[in-house]
């Protein structure tokens, strides 16, 4: 971004204003729709400002990992598809896509959002694998929060067939049931621009920020994942301030997700 644009954003922030008239602790307008891809077990499309991310959840049979023979498997992948941004190129996931997937994964995994033990079909041999695929469609900043929120909504609204296990084989029934979700992790990302910390950075703000801090917390206000990004630094006090801010914003976002998943 041109220096002039950078300076404008910084000067406005010194006055507590952001380019889109938001307060420093305000999220952009969020629209969350579930059940948008019927072929998937669960899906959610989020519009966070102009950022658009589609998450699909598929649940299939697979093998457990040898060191956790009694648990289901969670795997998160993210695709920064080229149509989402002039800066995205076709090819295998690059470091940004990998970081995005791994941060979203940690939020779900460390908060124990999915009761993985209940997904076991046959000890050590068969289990259900939950695939969470993040598909970024339009990049206008804060892909981590958008992806994490949409992933949670997709998981909460996902439906799998009820089943019996007979002789180690799964026999599916017609009725559907939800995935065993026992926690709702929410990611809140803050960007440091000059000396200010702003919530939910837009793409322009991400281009001038020196660093970002993502804090993922669960329903009990416990921190389950954190990730600093960007080539700048955070003062020790800024880390503390960022966490406090993130923990205070999480409940309002969480209720929006739960609302959307019910629909």
């Amino acid at each position, binding site marked *: 971004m041109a220096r002039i644009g950078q300076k404008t954003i910084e000067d406005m922030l010194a006055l507590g204003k952001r380019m889109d008239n938001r307060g420093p602790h305000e999220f952009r307008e969020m629209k969350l729709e579930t059940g948008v891809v019927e072929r998937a077990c669960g899906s959610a499309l989020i519009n966070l400002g102009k950022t658009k991310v589609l998450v699909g959840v598929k649940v299939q049979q697979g*093998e457990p990992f*040898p*060191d*956790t*023979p*009694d648990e289901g498997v969670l795997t998160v992948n993210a695709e920064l598809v080229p149509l989402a941004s002039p800066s995205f190129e076709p090819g295998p*996931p690059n*470091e*940004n896509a*990998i*970081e995005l*997937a*791994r941060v979203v994964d*940690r939020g779900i*995994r*460390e*908060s124990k959002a999915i009761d993985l033990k209940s997904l076991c079909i046959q*000890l*050590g*041999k068969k289990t259900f694998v939950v695939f969470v695929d993040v598909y970024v469609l339009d990049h206008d900043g804060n892909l981590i929060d958008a992806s994490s929120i949409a992933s949670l909504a997709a998981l909460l609204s996902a439906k799998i067939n009820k089943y019996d296990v007979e002789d180690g084989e799964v026999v599916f029934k017609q009725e559907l049931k939800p995935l065993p979700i026992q926690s709702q992790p929410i990611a809140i990302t803050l960007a440091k621009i000059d000396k200010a910390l702003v919530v939910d950075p837009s793409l322009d703000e991400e281009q001038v920020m020196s660093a970002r*801090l993502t804090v993922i917390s*669960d329903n009990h*206000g*416990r*921190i*389950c*994942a*954190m*990730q*600093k*990004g*960007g*080539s*700048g*630094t*955070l*003062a*020790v006090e*800024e*880390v*503390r301030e960022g*966490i*406090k801010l993130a*923990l205070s914003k999480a409940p309002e976002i969480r209720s929006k997700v739960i609302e959307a998943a019910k629909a």
Partner: protein
Amino acid sequence: MNKVKSREKPVELIDKNGLRIDGRKLDELRPIKMEIGLLDKADGSAYIEQGKNKILAAVYGPREAHPKHIALPHRAVLRCRYHMAPFSVTERKSPAPSRREQELSKVIREALEPAVLSEYYPRTTIDLFIEVLQSDGGSRCAGITGASLALADAGIPMRGLVAACAVGKIAGKIALDLSDAEDKQGEADLPVAVMPRSNTVTLIQMDGSLTPEEFETAFEMAVRTCHAIHEQQKTTLKQRYLSIKEEVEEKNEQGKSEGQ
């Protein structure tokens, strides 16, 4: 291959005397050994041992950017590759870069970028390679600590050194510098990198479950320990230059006496 491994029986992480598996107290660091300038071809290099971790860090640069389009007009580009040797872990690891290694390469680069005065060398690259020869928990932190030394050894001007360490939670208690066994069974892991000269955080990640109060205890312990590791980094660098100075003086002495 689908062997059912019986889940490893959980080891008692903290015994009745408050000591950990390796006999350390909760707030005790593993012993760290630092060595600088051990590689011949690299512009700068360092070797660090922290507990059973054995990590080599090397720097090539500033050097001409290849491919050319990577170069930036106003500063050097810092590139970083964190990689684990196949024999560094208990179960042989494929040499192909895993997703974890790619993420760590990114966060380590971002941990060191603020320290490097890259504006001094526009249109070049500074390539940093971290090879984990043996891994036992906290390798990204030891890697960052070693990488700072390698950058200094390469003579690259920096705002300050970066030191890193990880704090975790085991058996409900906050503990410093988790080993791999402790991390696997533990309830939280918090790696932190600090540039002590400005007391700023250049890397912070966390996974697990911590209340805000537990986080504060862990964070404060991590920052404090980074300052302590920084002292050792400085001493190691000073020693290196002291020994170079002694070597040079010795050669000069010899030269003088031979000349007579």
